[in-house]
């Protein structure tokens, strides 16, 4: 089973987490960007077969958004850090309301 080592709670099964998708995307600046940039941000995916940077929220634990590197070909999990330490800005995780 996929196990995610939460920096705050330790190794936990993935079912305690909420998947938040591709974290390599950068949201275009509000106002300025072309429609094309917004389209690419929302709808296009690199979808790599290999290392993938992605968000998970530990909603049944510390409730923090994490930034996880996972190999999509093997499900091996590499680095896991708190998303807010990744320079994404507070509340920038997908699903943030």
């Amino acid at each position, binding site marked *: *089973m*996929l196990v995610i080592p939460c920096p705050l709670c330790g190794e936990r*099964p*993935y*079912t305690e987490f909420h*998947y938040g*998708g*591709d974290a390599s995307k950068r949201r275009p600046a509000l106002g300025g960007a072309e*429609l*094309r940039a917004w*389209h*690419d941000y*929302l*709808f*296009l*995916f*690199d*979808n790599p*077969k290999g290392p*993938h940077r*992605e968000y998970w929220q530990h909603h049944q634990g510390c409730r923090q958004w994490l930034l996880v590197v*996972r190999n*999509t*070909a*093997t*499900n091996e999990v590499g680095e896991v850090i708190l998303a807010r330490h990744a320079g994404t800005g507070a509340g920038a995780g*997908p699903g943030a309301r």
Partner: protein
Amino acid sequence: MYRYSLSRLVRHALSDRPWPRAWRQAKPRSHYDVLIIGGGGHGLATAYYLAANHGVQRVAVVERAHIGAGNVGRNTTLVRSNYMMKGNTEFFEFSLQLWEGLSRELNFNVMLSQRGQIVLAHAPAQMDALARRGNIMRLNGIDAELLERAQVRRLLPYLDYSSAARFPVLGGLLQGRAGTVRHDAVAWGYARAADSLGVDIIEGCEVTGFVQDQSGVRGVETNRGRIRADRVAIAVAGHSSQVAALAGLRLPIESHLLQAFVTEPIKPFVNHVISFGAELFYISQSDKGGLVFGGHIDGFNNYTQRGQLPQVRRVAECAVALIPGISRLKLLRHWAGIQDMTPDGGPFICRTPIRHLYLNGGWCYQGFKATPAVGWCLAATIAHDEEHPLVRCYALDRFARGAASLDEYGHGHRPYRH
């Protein structure tokens, strides 16, 4: 073609003469009019209709593994046309009509079993939604019948009708012409029929790159060398992003894992296809007696083709919530396939920004039932270098144009939500 018939069957039964191979083991030639990447149901059907409907002479299907290794041999075999979004409704009904004549067309019994599919409602709002869906279907000439609780009970007496039922059955929507098809037979039947029209089916041949110049795609690089082609189509199910990336394209697709399950065989019991209304869960019984069922994707993009155990449990819980009587059955096997998921749950059958390169992908949960129509419409799209009218709604640029309105259940733009 060595035609299959009753007299042939009898003659072979009475002699030890082996049946001939169903298709040649073709070697790649240096040049084709059309080359299709991916020997699943979609690629094979496209090749067949290119030859049968459009008279294209030199067609190749290149498959990196063997025919039937992909999702065409991994799906749960359901076919239906109970769609309500414009575009989907017409396309999937066309596909069902092609299924209805397919065994004859291919001279291969694909064992279409129109046993009927019942989608259940467990809340009044769900009944309203099913009534709306059924009305849209009927307005499009598709069979649909709204069932009340008592009617469902007559057809499916083994559901939980007790007062303790967590999800009481209020009714359902029946499509009588929906059912199942033997999936392997679809791959083999199209392969054999395409081969007999001269299509080269090249197994063990993986596309590793594209040959391109200013005028567009001119062929592919493979582990068996370069193959030139005037037109190239991608039909690789869960690997569309991977193959499109070789041509420099980035797609609105994420690859996700879907599991399927089969129990030990039992006597005939589930005589329809049933879709649970409280969760994404559906069940039918195979001719061998096993209950075949499936649920949601695992929920995070991956290519492992190995499902997560918590999902096994979740699906099993759905099975027992729906049919308490099967709680003691043993699961015989479970397996997984990788499928493209898209921002609106709809597929792509279209030209691409690169000349002479065509895409069929993004099939989410629903590509098997679409197989004949995919083949028919993609073949026409390639032959005329213009989208067949039935697939104009499946263009790659529909999000950019604000024309994406295929989301049957309003799940929004995240692929893993569909």
